[in-house]
Protein backbone atom coordinates (compact mmCIF):
# COMPACT_ATOMS: atom_id res chain seq x y z
CA UNK A 1 0.00 0.00 0.00
CA UNK A 2 1.25 3.41 -0.94
CA UNK A 3 1.28 6.80 0.68
CA UNK A 4 1.32 10.33 -0.65
CA UNK A 5 4.62 12.09 -0.08
CA UNK A 6 7.00 14.61 -1.62
CA UNK A 7 9.36 13.70 -4.45
CA UNK A 8 12.27 14.44 -2.16
CA UNK A 9 10.99 11.97 0.45
CA UNK A 10 10.02 9.36 -2.13
CA UNK A 11 13.44 9.40 -3.82
CA UNK A 12 15.45 9.39 -0.60
CA UNK A 13 13.37 6.56 0.85
CA UNK A 14 13.25 4.41 -2.28
CA UNK A 15 16.70 4.74 -3.84
CA UNK A 16 20.15 3.79 -2.57
CA UNK A 17 23.52 4.45 -4.22
CA UNK A 18 24.32 1.61 -6.59
CA UNK A 19 20.67 0.72 -7.24
CA UNK A 20 19.25 -0.09 -10.64
CA UNK A 21 16.63 2.52 -11.48
CA UNK A 22 14.17 2.71 -14.36
CA UNK A 23 12.58 6.08 -15.11
CA UNK A 24 9.75 5.06 -17.41
CA UNK A 25 7.96 6.96 -20.17
CA UNK A 26 8.43 6.51 -23.89
CA UNK A 27 8.43 10.02 -25.41
CA UNK A 28 5.49 10.85 -23.10
CA UNK A 29 5.30 11.58 -19.37
CA UNK A 30 9.04 11.35 -18.84
CA UNK A 31 9.78 11.71 -15.09
CA UNK A 32 12.04 14.75 -15.23
CA UNK A 33 11.17 15.87 -11.71
CA UNK A 34 12.34 12.52 -10.31
CA UNK A 35 15.53 12.65 -12.37
CA UNK A 36 16.34 16.12 -11.08
CA UNK A 37 15.66 15.04 -7.50
CA UNK A 38 18.11 12.15 -7.97
CA UNK A 39 20.74 14.65 -9.15
CA UNK A 40 19.92 17.03 -6.31
CA UNK A 41 20.42 14.26 -3.76
CA UNK A 42 23.78 13.44 -5.39
CA UNK A 43 23.27 9.75 -5.96
CA UNK A 44 26.15 7.77 -7.41
CA UNK A 45 26.89 4.47 -9.13
CA UNK A 46 23.35 4.03 -10.38
CA UNK A 47 22.49 1.63 -13.17
CA UNK A 48 19.85 3.49 -15.14
CA UNK A 49 17.56 1.81 -17.66
CA UNK A 50 15.37 3.47 -20.27
CA UNK A 51 14.58 2.66 -23.88
CA UNK A 52 15.30 6.31 -24.71
CA UNK A 53 17.67 7.94 -22.22
CA UNK A 54 16.50 11.39 -23.40
CA UNK A 55 17.59 14.64 -21.74
CA UNK A 56 16.83 13.40 -18.23
CA UNK A 57 19.49 10.67 -18.37
CA UNK A 58 21.90 12.98 -20.19
CA UNK A 59 21.56 15.29 -17.18
CA UNK A 60 21.99 12.46 -14.65
CA UNK A 61 25.08 11.22 -16.51
CA UNK A 62 26.52 14.74 -16.64
CA UNK A 63 25.94 15.05 -12.89
CA UNK A 64 28.00 11.92 -12.22
CA UNK A 65 25.17 9.80 -10.81
CA UNK A 66 25.58 6.94 -13.27
CA UNK A 67 27.87 3.97 -13.76
CA UNK A 68 25.84 1.98 -16.29
CA UNK A 69 23.13 2.67 -18.87
CA UNK A 70 20.77 -0.01 -20.18
CA UNK A 71 19.07 1.40 -23.26
CA UNK A 72 18.05 1.11 -26.90
CA UNK A 73 18.18 4.62 -28.37
CA UNK A 74 20.30 7.37 -26.88
CA UNK A 75 19.46 10.58 -28.67
CA UNK A 76 17.76 13.93 -28.28
CA UNK A 77 14.46 13.06 -29.99
CA UNK A 78 13.86 15.09 -33.12
CA UNK A 79 17.01 17.13 -32.40
CA UNK A 80 20.25 15.10 -32.46
CA UNK A 81 22.81 13.66 -30.08
CA UNK A 82 22.95 13.44 -26.33
CA UNK A 83 26.24 15.19 -25.74
CA UNK A 84 26.79 14.25 -22.10
CA UNK A 85 26.00 10.61 -22.87
CA UNK A 86 28.53 10.72 -25.71
CA UNK A 87 31.19 12.40 -23.57
CA UNK A 88 30.84 9.65 -21.00
CA UNK A 89 30.70 6.85 -23.60
CA UNK A 90 33.51 8.19 -25.80
CA UNK A 91 35.75 10.09 -23.37
CA UNK A 92 34.88 8.87 -19.83
CA UNK A 93 33.70 12.35 -18.78
CA UNK A 94 32.74 12.89 -15.94
CA UNK A 95 33.24 9.14 -15.53
CA UNK A 96 33.28 6.05 -17.70
CA UNK A 97 29.87 4.47 -18.16
CA UNK A 98 29.13 0.90 -19.07
CA UNK A 99 26.57 0.45 -21.84
CA UNK A 100 24.18 -2.47 -22.20
CA UNK A 101 22.36 -2.13 -25.45
CA UNK A 102 19.16 -3.52 -26.97
CA UNK A 103 16.59 -2.55 -29.52
CA UNK A 104 13.33 -0.92 -28.40
CA UNK A 105 11.57 -4.26 -28.71
CA UNK A 106 14.34 -5.95 -26.77
CA UNK A 107 14.09 -3.41 -23.93
CA UNK A 108 10.29 -3.58 -23.86
CA UNK A 109 10.45 -7.37 -23.81
CA UNK A 110 12.95 -7.46 -20.96
CA UNK A 111 10.63 -5.32 -18.83
CA UNK A 112 7.66 -7.43 -19.89
CA UNK A 113 9.50 -10.60 -18.83
CA UNK A 114 10.17 -8.94 -15.49
CA UNK A 115 6.53 -7.90 -15.12
CA UNK A 116 5.20 -11.42 -15.78
CA UNK A 117 8.00 -13.30 -13.98
CA UNK A 118 9.21 -15.46 -16.85
CA UNK A 119 12.87 -16.55 -16.99
CA UNK A 120 12.97 -15.60 -20.68
CA UNK A 121 10.69 -14.29 -23.40
CA UNK A 122 11.27 -15.10 -27.08
CA UNK A 123 11.06 -12.39 -29.73
CA UNK A 124 11.59 -12.20 -33.46
CA UNK A 125 14.31 -9.61 -33.73
CA UNK A 126 18.14 -9.41 -33.55
CA UNK A 127 18.61 -12.03 -36.32
CA UNK A 128 21.20 -10.64 -38.72
CA UNK A 129 22.09 -7.76 -36.41
CA UNK A 130 25.51 -7.43 -34.72
CA UNK A 131 23.86 -6.59 -31.38
CA UNK A 132 23.80 -10.18 -29.99
CA UNK A 133 27.60 -10.40 -30.42
CA UNK A 134 28.00 -7.66 -27.84
CA UNK A 135 25.33 -8.56 -25.30
CA UNK A 136 25.19 -11.90 -23.54
CA UNK A 137 21.59 -11.21 -22.52
CA UNK A 138 20.47 -11.77 -26.12
CA UNK A 139 20.53 -15.50 -26.81
CA UNK A 140 19.03 -17.86 -29.37
CA UNK A 141 16.37 -20.32 -28.33
CA UNK A 142 14.84 -23.12 -30.36
CA UNK A 143 11.09 -23.60 -30.55
CA UNK A 144 9.91 -26.84 -28.97
CA UNK A 145 7.46 -27.03 -31.91
CA UNK A 146 9.44 -27.50 -35.11
CA UNK A 147 12.99 -26.28 -35.56
CA UNK A 148 12.49 -22.54 -35.78
CA UNK A 149 15.07 -20.55 -33.85
CA UNK A 150 14.34 -17.12 -32.42
CA UNK A 151 16.11 -14.89 -29.91
CA UNK A 152 15.19 -14.43 -26.27
CA UNK A 153 15.93 -11.94 -23.51
CA UNK A 154 15.80 -12.38 -19.72
CA UNK A 155 13.69 -10.31 -17.32
CA UNK A 156 14.69 -6.79 -16.31
CA UNK A 157 13.72 -6.19 -12.69
CA UNK A 158 14.86 -2.76 -11.54
CA UNK A 159 15.27 -2.04 -7.86
CA UNK A 160 13.19 1.09 -8.32
CA UNK A 161 10.91 2.32 -11.09
CA UNK A 162 9.56 5.83 -11.37
CA UNK A 163 6.37 5.88 -13.41
CA UNK A 164 4.14 8.76 -14.33
CA UNK A 165 0.44 9.02 -15.05
CA UNK A 166 -2.00 11.87 -15.42
CA UNK A 167 -4.17 11.13 -12.39
CA UNK A 168 -4.24 8.90 -9.34
CA UNK A 169 -6.05 8.60 -6.06
CA UNK A 170 -4.13 8.80 -2.80
CA UNK A 171 -3.58 5.04 -2.78
CA UNK A 172 -1.83 5.11 -6.16
CA UNK A 173 -4.61 3.68 -8.31
CA UNK A 174 -3.93 5.59 -11.51
CA UNK A 175 -5.19 6.47 -14.99
CA UNK A 176 -2.86 7.04 -17.92
CA UNK A 177 -3.96 8.03 -21.41
CA UNK A 178 -2.12 8.86 -24.60
CA UNK A 179 1.13 7.01 -25.25
CA UNK A 180 1.63 4.28 -22.63
CA UNK A 181 5.18 3.38 -23.52
CA UNK A 182 6.54 0.91 -20.98
CA UNK A 183 5.02 2.50 -17.85
CA UNK A 184 2.93 -0.50 -16.88
CA UNK A 185 5.66 -3.09 -17.39
CA UNK A 186 8.16 -0.93 -15.48
CA UNK A 187 5.78 -0.61 -12.53
CA UNK A 188 5.12 -4.36 -12.46
CA UNK A 189 8.76 -5.38 -12.96
CA UNK A 190 10.35 -3.20 -10.27
CA UNK A 191 10.73 -3.98 -6.58
CA UNK A 192 9.82 -0.47 -5.48
CA UNK A 193 7.60 1.95 -7.39
CA UNK A 194 7.38 5.72 -7.17
CA UNK A 195 4.27 7.02 -8.95
CA UNK A 196 4.30 10.68 -9.91
CA UNK A 197 1.10 12.25 -11.27
CA UNK A 198 -0.20 15.50 -12.69
CA UNK A 199 -3.12 15.54 -10.26
CA UNK A 200 -4.70 13.65 -7.38
CA UNK A 201 -8.36 12.73 -7.83
CA UNK A 202 -10.90 10.82 -5.79
CA UNK A 203 -11.11 7.03 -6.01
CA UNK A 204 -14.55 7.25 -7.65
CA UNK A 205 -12.96 8.84 -10.71
CA UNK A 206 -10.60 5.90 -11.10
CA UNK A 207 -13.36 3.36 -10.47
CA UNK A 208 -15.59 5.09 -13.03
CA UNK A 209 -13.36 3.72 -15.79
CA UNK A 210 -11.40 0.61 -14.77
CA UNK A 211 -10.30 -0.02 -18.37
CA UNK A 212 -8.22 3.17 -18.12
CA UNK A 213 -6.24 2.02 -15.08
CA UNK A 214 -2.49 1.67 -15.55
CA UNK A 215 -1.78 -0.14 -12.27
CA UNK A 216 -3.52 -0.30 -8.92
CA UNK A 217 -2.19 1.05 -5.66
CA UNK A 218 -1.03 -2.43 -4.63
CA UNK A 219 1.89 -2.01 -7.04
CA UNK A 220 2.81 1.49 -5.86
CA UNK A 221 5.00 2.36 -2.87
CA UNK A 222 5.08 6.17 -3.05
CA UNK A 223 2.58 8.56 -4.61
CA UNK A 224 3.85 12.02 -5.52
CA UNK A 225 1.51 14.80 -6.63
CA UNK A 226 3.77 16.57 -9.11
CA UNK A 227 2.14 18.93 -11.62
CA UNK A 228 4.39 19.66 -14.60
CA UNK A 229 6.58 16.80 -13.39
CA UNK A 230 7.44 15.87 -16.97
CA UNK A 231 8.50 19.27 -18.29
CA UNK A 232 10.15 19.69 -20.84
CA UNK A 233 8.55 16.41 -21.94
CA UNK A 234 4.76 16.48 -22.01
CA UNK A 235 1.56 15.17 -20.45
CA UNK A 236 -1.21 14.47 -22.96
CA UNK A 237 -4.09 16.85 -22.29
CA UNK A 238 -2.09 18.86 -19.73
CA UNK A 239 0.86 20.48 -21.53
CA UNK A 240 2.82 20.01 -24.72
CA UNK A 241 6.48 19.26 -25.15
CA UNK A 242 8.69 22.31 -24.65
CA UNK A 243 10.63 21.95 -27.86
CA UNK A 244 12.72 25.02 -27.15
CA UNK A 245 14.14 23.27 -24.08
CA UNK A 246 15.13 20.28 -26.20
CA UNK A 247 16.82 22.58 -28.72
CA UNK A 248 18.52 24.57 -25.95
CA UNK A 249 19.86 21.43 -24.32
CA UNK A 250 21.53 20.53 -27.59
CA UNK A 251 23.55 23.73 -27.21
CA UNK A 252 24.03 23.62 -23.44
CA UNK A 253 25.22 20.04 -23.28
CA UNK A 254 27.99 20.60 -25.82
CA UNK A 255 30.36 21.83 -23.10
CA UNK A 256 30.98 20.62 -19.58
CA UNK A 257 30.93 24.21 -18.31
CA UNK A 258 27.54 25.08 -19.74
CA UNK A 259 26.12 21.78 -18.62
CA UNK A 260 27.31 22.29 -15.05
CA UNK A 261 25.99 25.83 -15.02
CA UNK A 262 22.61 24.57 -16.19
CA UNK A 263 22.50 21.88 -13.51
CA UNK A 264 23.51 24.46 -10.92
CA UNK A 265 20.72 26.82 -11.91
CA UNK A 266 17.84 24.49 -12.74
CA UNK A 267 18.50 21.51 -10.46
CA UNK A 268 20.71 22.36 -7.49
CA UNK A 269 19.51 25.96 -7.51
CA UNK A 270 15.87 25.04 -6.87
CA UNK A 271 14.28 23.21 -3.95
CA UNK A 272 11.79 21.20 -5.90
CA UNK A 273 9.73 20.95 -9.07
CA UNK A 274 7.43 23.80 -8.08
CA UNK A 275 10.36 26.18 -7.81
CA UNK A 276 11.71 24.90 -11.13
CA UNK A 277 8.39 25.59 -12.85
CA UNK A 278 8.14 29.03 -11.28
CA UNK A 279 11.44 29.90 -12.96
CA UNK A 280 9.84 29.46 -16.38
CA UNK A 281 8.19 32.52 -17.93
CA UNK A 282 4.41 32.66 -18.04
CA UNK A 283 4.65 33.08 -21.82
CA UNK A 284 6.41 29.78 -22.02
CA UNK A 285 3.87 28.02 -19.84
CA UNK A 286 1.02 29.50 -21.87
CA UNK A 287 2.65 28.34 -25.11
CA UNK A 288 2.63 24.81 -23.73
CA UNK A 289 -1.14 24.77 -23.12
CA UNK A 290 -2.42 21.64 -24.79
CA UNK A 291 -5.93 22.65 -25.89
CA UNK A 292 -8.92 20.52 -25.02
CA UNK A 293 -10.57 17.58 -26.67
CA UNK A 294 -12.49 15.18 -24.46
CA UNK A 295 -13.05 11.47 -24.91
CA UNK A 296 -16.64 10.45 -25.58
CA UNK A 297 -17.63 8.74 -22.30
CA UNK A 298 -18.73 5.14 -22.10
CA UNK A 299 -21.48 3.68 -19.97
CA UNK A 300 -20.26 1.11 -17.46
CA UNK A 301 -23.81 0.39 -16.31
CA UNK A 302 -24.72 -0.95 -12.93
CA UNK A 303 -26.11 1.99 -11.01
Amino acid at each position, binding site marked *: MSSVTSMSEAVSSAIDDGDSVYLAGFTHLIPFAAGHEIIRQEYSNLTIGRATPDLVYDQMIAAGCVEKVVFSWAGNPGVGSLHAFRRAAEDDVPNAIELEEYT*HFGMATRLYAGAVDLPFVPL*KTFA*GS*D*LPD*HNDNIRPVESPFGDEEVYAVPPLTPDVAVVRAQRADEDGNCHLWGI*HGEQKEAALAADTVILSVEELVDTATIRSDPNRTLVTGDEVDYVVNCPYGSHPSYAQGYYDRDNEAYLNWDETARTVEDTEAWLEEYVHGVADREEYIRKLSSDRLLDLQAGNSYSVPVDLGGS
Partner: protein
Amino acid sequence: MEYTDTELMVTAAANRLRDGDSVLVGIGVPNLACNLAKRTHAPDLTMVYESGVIDANPSSLPLSIGDPVLVSGAMNLESLHGGFNYYLQAGRLDAGFLGGAQIDRHGNINSTVIGDYEDPDVRLPGSGGACEIASNVERTLVVTPHDRRRFPEKVDFVTSPGYLDGDGEREELGLRGGPAAVITDMAVMGFEDGEMVVESLHPGVERSAVQEATGWELQFSDDLTTTPVPSDDTLQLIREELDPDGVYL
Protein backbone atom coordinates in the same frame (compact mmCIF):
# COMPACT_ATOMS: atom_id res chain seq x y z
CA MET B 1 8.57 25.82 -60.17
CA GLU B 2 11.99 25.48 -58.52
CA TYR B 3 12.29 22.78 -55.90
CA THR B 4 14.76 21.93 -53.17
CA ASP B 5 16.61 18.63 -52.70
CA THR B 6 14.38 17.90 -49.72
CA GLU B 7 11.22 18.54 -51.75
CA LEU B 8 12.43 16.14 -54.41
CA MET B 9 13.24 13.52 -51.78
CA VAL B 10 9.83 13.95 -50.15
CA THR B 11 8.18 13.50 -53.55
CA ALA B 12 10.28 10.47 -54.47
CA ALA B 13 9.56 8.86 -51.11
CA ALA B 14 5.82 9.53 -51.45
CA ASN B 15 5.91 7.83 -54.87
CA ARG B 16 7.13 4.64 -53.18
CA LEU B 17 4.01 4.47 -51.00
CA ARG B 18 0.84 2.73 -52.16
CA ASP B 19 -2.77 3.28 -51.28
CA GLY B 20 -3.73 1.02 -48.37
CA ASP B 21 -0.17 0.75 -47.05
CA SER B 22 0.40 0.71 -43.32
CA VAL B 23 3.62 2.65 -42.90
CA LEU B 24 6.01 2.95 -39.97
CA VAL B 25 6.79 6.65 -40.20
CA GLY B 26 9.64 8.70 -38.84
CA ILE B 27 9.96 12.43 -38.27
CA GLY B 28 10.99 14.85 -41.03
CA VAL B 29 11.06 13.68 -44.66
CA PRO B 30 9.25 10.37 -44.00
CA ASN B 31 6.44 12.19 -42.24
CA LEU B 32 6.10 14.70 -45.06
CA ALA B 33 6.22 11.90 -47.64
CA CYS B 34 3.43 9.99 -45.93
CA ASN B 35 1.25 13.06 -45.61
CA LEU B 36 1.91 13.93 -49.26
CA ALA B 37 0.96 10.42 -50.38
CA LYS B 38 -2.15 10.50 -48.21
CA ARG B 39 -3.28 13.80 -49.77
CA THR B 40 -2.65 12.55 -53.30
CA HIS B 41 -2.56 8.94 -54.52
CA ALA B 42 -2.85 7.06 -51.22
CA PRO B 43 -5.79 8.39 -49.18
CA ASP B 44 -6.08 5.08 -47.31
CA LEU B 45 -2.49 5.06 -46.12
CA THR B 46 -2.18 4.35 -42.41
CA MET B 47 0.56 6.10 -40.45
CA VAL B 48 2.06 4.12 -37.58
CA TYR B 49 4.76 5.32 -35.16
CA GLU B 50 7.09 3.27 -33.00
CA SER B 51 5.69 5.18 -30.02
CA GLY B 52 2.58 3.03 -30.48
CA VAL B 53 0.41 5.52 -32.36
CA ILE B 54 -1.71 3.70 -34.96
CA ASP B 55 -3.37 5.64 -37.77
CA ALA B 56 -2.36 9.12 -36.67
CA ASN B 57 -4.32 12.06 -37.99
CA PRO B 58 -2.13 14.98 -36.91
CA SER B 59 -3.41 18.55 -37.19
CA SER B 60 0.13 19.92 -37.42
CA LEU B 61 3.69 18.70 -38.04
CA PRO B 62 4.93 16.40 -35.26
CA LEU B 63 8.30 17.32 -33.76
CA SER B 64 9.02 13.83 -32.45
CA ILE B 65 7.57 10.35 -32.82
CA GLY B 66 5.82 10.90 -29.51
CA ASP B 67 4.41 14.34 -30.29
CA PRO B 68 0.98 14.87 -28.68
CA VAL B 69 -0.47 15.95 -32.07
CA LEU B 70 0.03 12.36 -33.21
CA VAL B 71 -2.08 11.12 -30.31
CA SER B 72 -5.04 13.50 -30.51
CA GLY B 73 -7.37 11.97 -33.08
CA ALA B 74 -5.35 8.78 -33.61
CA MET B 75 -7.35 5.62 -34.19
CA ASN B 76 -5.52 3.36 -31.75
CA LEU B 77 -2.67 3.44 -29.26
CA GLU B 78 -0.51 0.47 -28.37
CA SER B 79 1.97 0.23 -25.51
CA LEU B 80 5.64 0.07 -26.48
CA HIS B 81 5.64 -3.71 -26.13
CA GLY B 82 2.23 -4.01 -27.80
CA GLY B 83 3.18 -1.98 -30.85
CA PHE B 84 6.34 -3.94 -31.57
CA ASN B 85 4.67 -7.22 -30.67
CA TYR B 86 1.29 -6.95 -32.38
CA TYR B 87 2.28 -4.78 -35.32
CA LEU B 88 5.93 -5.24 -36.25
CA GLN B 89 6.67 -8.77 -35.10
CA ALA B 90 3.30 -9.94 -36.42
CA GLY B 91 4.10 -8.53 -39.84
CA ARG B 92 1.19 -6.09 -40.09
CA LEU B 93 3.19 -3.24 -41.63
CA ASP B 94 3.78 -2.83 -45.35
CA ALA B 95 6.50 -0.23 -45.35
CA GLY B 96 8.80 1.52 -42.94
CA PHE B 97 11.22 4.41 -43.12
CA LEU B 98 14.74 4.25 -41.74
CA GLY B 99 17.70 6.57 -41.57
CA GLY B 100 21.16 5.74 -40.31
CA ALA B 101 24.76 6.87 -40.38
CA GLN B 102 25.83 4.20 -42.89
CA ILE B 103 24.16 1.98 -45.45
CA ASP B 104 26.13 -0.56 -47.48
CA ARG B 105 25.79 -2.23 -50.90
CA HIS B 106 23.47 -4.89 -49.47
CA GLY B 107 21.26 -2.41 -47.64
CA ASN B 108 22.55 -3.15 -44.15
CA ILE B 109 22.23 -0.12 -41.91
CA ASN B 110 24.42 1.15 -39.10
CA SER B 111 23.05 3.52 -36.50
CA THR B 112 25.13 2.24 -33.57
CA VAL B 113 28.82 3.19 -33.77
CA ILE B 114 31.45 4.50 -36.17
CA GLY B 115 34.62 2.51 -35.56
CA ASP B 116 34.97 -0.29 -33.06
CA TYR B 117 31.96 -1.14 -30.89
CA GLU B 118 33.97 -1.38 -27.69
CA ASP B 119 35.97 1.80 -28.35
CA PRO B 120 33.93 3.88 -30.78
CA ASP B 121 35.09 6.90 -32.75
CA VAL B 122 31.51 8.09 -32.72
CA ARG B 123 28.82 6.72 -30.47
CA LEU B 124 25.54 6.95 -32.41
CA PRO B 125 22.06 6.71 -30.82
CA GLY B 126 21.65 2.96 -31.44
CA SER B 127 18.88 0.87 -32.90
CA GLY B 128 15.78 2.14 -31.24
CA GLY B 129 13.17 0.30 -33.25
CA ALA B 130 15.25 0.31 -36.44
CA CYS B 131 16.30 -3.34 -36.22
CA GLU B 132 12.65 -4.40 -35.81
CA ILE B 133 11.49 -2.20 -38.66
CA ALA B 134 14.20 -3.50 -40.99
CA SER B 135 13.43 -7.09 -39.99
CA ASN B 136 9.66 -7.00 -40.27
CA VAL B 137 8.20 -4.55 -42.78
CA GLU B 138 7.70 -5.66 -46.38
CA ARG B 139 9.50 -2.68 -47.88
CA THR B 140 12.14 -0.73 -46.00
CA LEU B 141 12.61 2.77 -47.38
CA VAL B 142 15.77 4.69 -46.57
CA VAL B 143 16.10 8.45 -46.94
CA THR B 144 19.62 9.83 -46.52
CA PRO B 145 22.09 12.35 -47.90
CA HIS B 146 24.48 10.75 -50.41
CA ASP B 147 28.18 10.77 -49.63
CA ARG B 148 31.05 8.27 -49.41
CA ARG B 149 31.10 8.30 -45.64
CA ARG B 150 27.49 7.23 -45.52
CA PHE B 151 27.78 4.66 -48.32
CA PRO B 152 30.69 2.33 -47.40
CA GLU B 153 30.98 -1.08 -49.03
CA LYS B 154 30.42 -2.64 -45.61
CA VAL B 155 28.95 -0.92 -42.57
CA ASP B 156 31.03 -0.76 -39.38
CA PHE B 157 28.17 -2.36 -37.45
CA VAL B 158 24.98 -4.02 -38.64
CA THR B 159 22.28 -2.42 -36.51
CA SER B 160 19.45 -3.25 -38.91
CA PRO B 161 19.79 -6.15 -41.33
CA GLY B 162 19.37 -5.52 -45.04
CA TYR B 163 20.28 -8.38 -47.34
CA LEU B 164 23.33 -9.13 -45.14
CA ASP B 165 25.88 -10.79 -47.47
CA GLY B 166 23.43 -10.52 -50.34
CA ASP B 167 23.42 -14.25 -50.97
CA GLY B 168 20.05 -15.22 -49.56
CA GLU B 169 21.12 -14.99 -45.91
CA ARG B 170 18.18 -12.70 -45.13
CA GLU B 171 15.63 -15.27 -46.31
CA GLU B 172 17.46 -18.08 -44.48
CA LEU B 173 17.10 -16.14 -41.23
CA GLY B 174 13.36 -15.89 -41.80
CA LEU B 175 13.32 -12.10 -41.98
CA ARG B 176 10.43 -10.48 -43.81
CA GLY B 177 10.67 -8.17 -46.84
CA GLY B 178 13.82 -6.12 -47.07
CA PRO B 179 15.24 -2.81 -48.27
CA ALA B 180 13.17 -1.61 -51.23
CA ALA B 181 14.45 1.86 -51.97
CA VAL B 182 17.20 4.26 -50.94
CA ILE B 183 16.32 7.87 -51.68
CA THR B 184 19.14 10.39 -51.54
CA ASP B 185 19.81 13.92 -52.73
CA MET B 186 21.36 12.45 -55.92
CA ALA B 187 19.38 9.37 -56.93
CA VAL B 188 16.83 6.72 -56.13
CA MET B 189 18.16 3.18 -55.73
CA GLY B 190 16.37 -0.14 -55.55
CA PHE B 191 17.70 -3.65 -54.90
CA GLU B 192 18.24 -6.60 -57.24
CA ASP B 193 19.44 -9.95 -55.88
CA GLY B 194 20.22 -8.24 -52.60
CA GLU B 195 22.41 -5.51 -54.11
CA MET B 196 21.76 -1.80 -54.44
CA VAL B 197 21.03 -0.64 -58.00
CA VAL B 198 20.51 2.93 -59.16
CA GLU B 199 17.05 3.21 -60.70
CA SER B 200 16.87 6.92 -61.35
CA LEU B 201 19.20 9.91 -61.22
CA HIS B 202 17.88 13.25 -60.07
CA PRO B 203 17.77 15.89 -62.82
CA GLY B 204 21.26 17.25 -63.48
CA VAL B 205 23.08 14.53 -61.55
CA GLU B 206 25.70 12.52 -63.49
CA ARG B 207 26.34 8.80 -63.03
CA SER B 208 29.93 9.60 -62.17
CA ALA B 209 28.90 11.93 -59.36
CA VAL B 210 26.79 9.22 -57.73
CA GLN B 211 29.57 6.67 -58.16
CA GLU B 212 32.02 9.12 -56.64
CA ALA B 213 29.77 9.53 -53.60
CA THR B 214 29.53 5.76 -53.08
CA GLY B 215 32.14 3.45 -51.54
CA TRP B 216 31.85 0.54 -53.95
CA GLU B 217 31.34 -0.09 -57.65
CA LEU B 218 27.71 0.87 -57.93
CA GLN B 219 25.28 -0.97 -60.21
CA PHE B 220 23.04 1.07 -62.50
CA SER B 221 19.74 -0.27 -63.79
CA ASP B 222 19.47 -1.09 -67.49
CA ASP B 223 16.29 0.98 -67.34
CA LEU B 224 17.95 3.95 -65.66
CA THR B 225 15.63 6.95 -65.71
CA THR B 226 15.50 10.47 -64.39
CA THR B 227 13.70 10.94 -61.07
CA PRO B 228 10.38 12.69 -61.69
CA VAL B 229 10.40 16.22 -60.33
CA PRO B 230 7.63 17.44 -58.02
CA SER B 231 4.72 19.05 -59.84
CA ASP B 232 3.65 22.58 -59.01
CA ASP B 233 0.61 21.20 -57.22
CA THR B 234 2.80 18.95 -55.14
CA LEU B 235 5.15 21.79 -54.23
CA GLN B 236 2.24 23.97 -53.27
CA LEU B 237 0.82 21.21 -51.07
CA ILE B 238 4.15 20.64 -49.36
CA ARG B 239 4.88 24.32 -48.77
CA GLU B 240 1.47 25.63 -47.91
CA GLU B 241 -0.14 22.74 -46.10
CA LEU B 242 2.34 20.11 -44.99
CA ASP B 243 5.22 22.24 -43.74
CA PRO B 244 4.01 25.84 -43.82
CA ASP B 245 6.69 26.94 -41.34
CA GLY B 246 9.45 25.31 -43.38
CA VAL B 247 10.65 23.23 -40.45
CA TYR B 248 12.06 20.45 -42.61
CA LEU B 249 12.37 22.09 -46.06
